[in-house]
């Protein structure tokens, strides 16, 4: 039995109320049994006789561990002291707006970018841009399509399978398995430039699964994807995670993070503001409510005016309305409406919601997720 250490959340600069007190779950027996399962068991359900095995030994402990990662590009500090761990069978979501530092973080986590400070451990091995063995445990699905349009789906998969060291025979068999899983077996011989966007996305993900990685890193895989393909991608990730693969998933879609991720790290301005399960993160907001005031007029002025009220924790302008985190919506609502109206907002609708990750993000960063 290997126990993960309980640890506090990592962002030292934030105020204490921004922390998740005990971010890490201690693995229970159910978690341990998941660690014993091959990450690619899901794909073995269509095994055509090839003995699938994960690359490298099964890891009892974090499959990915990032320790105090720092990365600076010129004057901009893109990542500042990010630490996280992901266990086998766990899906970890990095949630943050565009430019928050998610892609830079995962670029360091997959050995594509060298950290200025800090270290990355993958499957027990230190990872740098020059590492070879540690990279064998990683499956990487970039945000943008990274396939060869003039090659067929089969040729694309076969090339990357060979690149990951599979023998010709093993690669051929494995390619057919993955083609079946991503639903492209019937069009495997066509150049991928003839594929729809959704099909290309599926192939993009399939390449990351070829070598049965222990850690799958997906960088916003649903950006620009139609709803049907998006749902298929989310189902695939759920299946892979259920079968034991560790997944690092970045997104700026709150609903994806809520649906997929066992734990979520909220990232903004290169810092990990907080991490935990959805329930743990929502608990950070406490007994607060989210109030949305819709209307016309000076939204910014209304947000500023409302924020000056003692019962308002955070305020921002989003989607043509003013979003507010308040202590108790019922008691403060009349005062809010009066203040907003006085500030020049002609209120046409009021919405009161239970806290969700959007609320958490607003609470932690003072701005909306899609700002």
């Amino acid at each position: 039995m290997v126990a993960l250490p309980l640890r506090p959340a990592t962002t030292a600069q934030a105020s204490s109320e921004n922390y998740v007190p005990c971010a890490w779950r201690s693995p229970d027996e159910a978690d341990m049994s998941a660690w014993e399962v091959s990450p690619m068991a899901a794909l073995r359900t269509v095994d055509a006789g090839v003995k699938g095995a994960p690359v490298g030994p099964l890891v009892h402990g974090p499959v990915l561990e990032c320790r105090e990662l720092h990365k600076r590009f010129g004057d901009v500090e893109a990542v500042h002291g990010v630490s996280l761990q992901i266990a086998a069978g766990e899906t970890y979501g990095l949630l943050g707006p565009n430019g928050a530092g998610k892609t830079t973080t995962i670029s360091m986590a997959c050995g594509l970018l060298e950290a200025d400070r800090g270290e990355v451990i993958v499957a027990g091995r230190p990872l740098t841009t020059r590492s070879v063995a540690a990279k064998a445990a990683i499956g990487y699905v970039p945000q943008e399509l990274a396939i060869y349009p003039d090659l067929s789906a089969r040729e694309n998969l076969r090339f990357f399978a060979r690149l990951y060291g599979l023998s010709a025979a093993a690669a051929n068999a494995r390619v057919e398995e993955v083609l079946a899983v991503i639903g492209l077996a019937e069009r495997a011989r066509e150049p991928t430039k003839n594929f729809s966007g959704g099909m290309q996305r599926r192939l993009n993900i399939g390449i990351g699964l070829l070598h049965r990685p222990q850690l799958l890193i997906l960088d916003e895989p649903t950006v620009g994807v139609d709803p049907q393909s998006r749902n298929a991608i989310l189902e695939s990730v759920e299946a892979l995670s259920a079968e034991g693969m560790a997944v690092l998933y970045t997104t700026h879609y709150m609903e994806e993070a809520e649906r997929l991720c066992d734990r979520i790290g909220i990232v903004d301005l290169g810092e990990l503001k907080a991490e935990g399960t959805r329930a743990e993160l929502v608990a950070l907001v406490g007994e607060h409510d989210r109030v949305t005031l819709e209307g016309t007029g000076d939204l910014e002025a209304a947000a500023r005016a409302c924020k000056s009220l003692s019962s308002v924790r955070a305020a921002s302008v989003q989607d043509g309305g003013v979003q507010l985190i308040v202590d108790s919506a019922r008691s403060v609502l009349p005062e809010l409406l009066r203040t907003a109206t006085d500030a020049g907002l002609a209120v046409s609708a009021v919405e009161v919601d239970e806290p969700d990750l959007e609320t958490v993000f607003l609470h932690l960063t003072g701005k909306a997720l899609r700002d």
Partner: protein
Amino acid sequence: MHTALVIAGKDLRQRLRDRSALLMAIVVPLVLASIFGLIFHNAISGRLTFKLGLVDQDRGPAAQAFVAEALAPLQRSGLIAVRREPTLGAARSATEQGKVSATFVLPAGLSAAIGHGRPSTLRVLGSVDATIGTQVAQSIAQSYAERIDTVRIASAATGATAIGAAQVAATPSPVSIADNSTKSRQLDAGTFYAAGMAVFFLFFTVQFGISSILEERRDGTLARMLVAPVHASAILVGKLLTSLVLGFASMGVLAIATHFLLSAHWGNVLGVAALIAAGVLAATCVMALVATLARTPEQAQSSQAMVALVLGMLGGTFFPVAQAGGLLATLSLATPQAWFLRGIEDLTGGAGPGAVLGPVAAILAFAALTGALAFMRAGRLIAP
């Protein structure tokens, strides 16, 4: 090495499907070599023959002397071919139809006029479409007229009142034609353009391998490769292998095709192989260096095209600039193309592979220099 071979295999598969690459590597150089070979066949090989017409309305000794002494030696040397026309109308027609470049018209009474010292006119009908041929005909006529004047002046000095054809014939021509070409190093047009076009387009062909690194970076597939358990150097080696294979294939196919289709005489097979090997290596290193200086594939391709064009022109792949002499000839030696063509020239005389040691060494030096510079900058090329 396994990874490099996998990458090279994938790249070659892509290139084989890219018709523009095949056109650039094989078809265009072959077609251009054929066209240039046909156009410049005579100019390059020194076997230029101007077709000239002759209308002899005089039929006297002066006309006979003109044909025997002014035209016959040039006919024997192959510089001109003379076609007799019965009438002035037929001569005009032949000139207009391009059957001859120009026509000499020896008017009736020419011999008598010359014999009695009276003025007469030897006309040249030239084609506006054959200015050089017309100038040659004018030059010949002028030369003959000057010989007559020389005789006339000499006769006047001696008190003679008439001059004869024999005197004109005995007077040396003020114009002499000498062949000063260095035939020992002269390629025929077919071979010159076969080798020239092959080595010119070689530089375009090999660029596909190296600049594809920049394309892969733009398309995100380089990042995907760098995340895989491979050494970054293996990616570079794979790309270089692609360039080398494309270069060898292109040069090999062109050498064989031009030998059979254009009757190009490349010379000793081992010598040619050594030159091709060195040339492919140099072209790959030059294009790799240019690629390392670019930020985008578009930048790389345009820079590489410029470098290939300048080196090709300076190296004499379109025109034998070395024969121009002077600074241009010296500058051309700073290009691998010039040394390649020099090597082929050395082989055409029937020499063995040892004859190309100098050119091969020069090309390899070029490859070593540019290759070392490219290697120093290669890390930048394969950075994610």
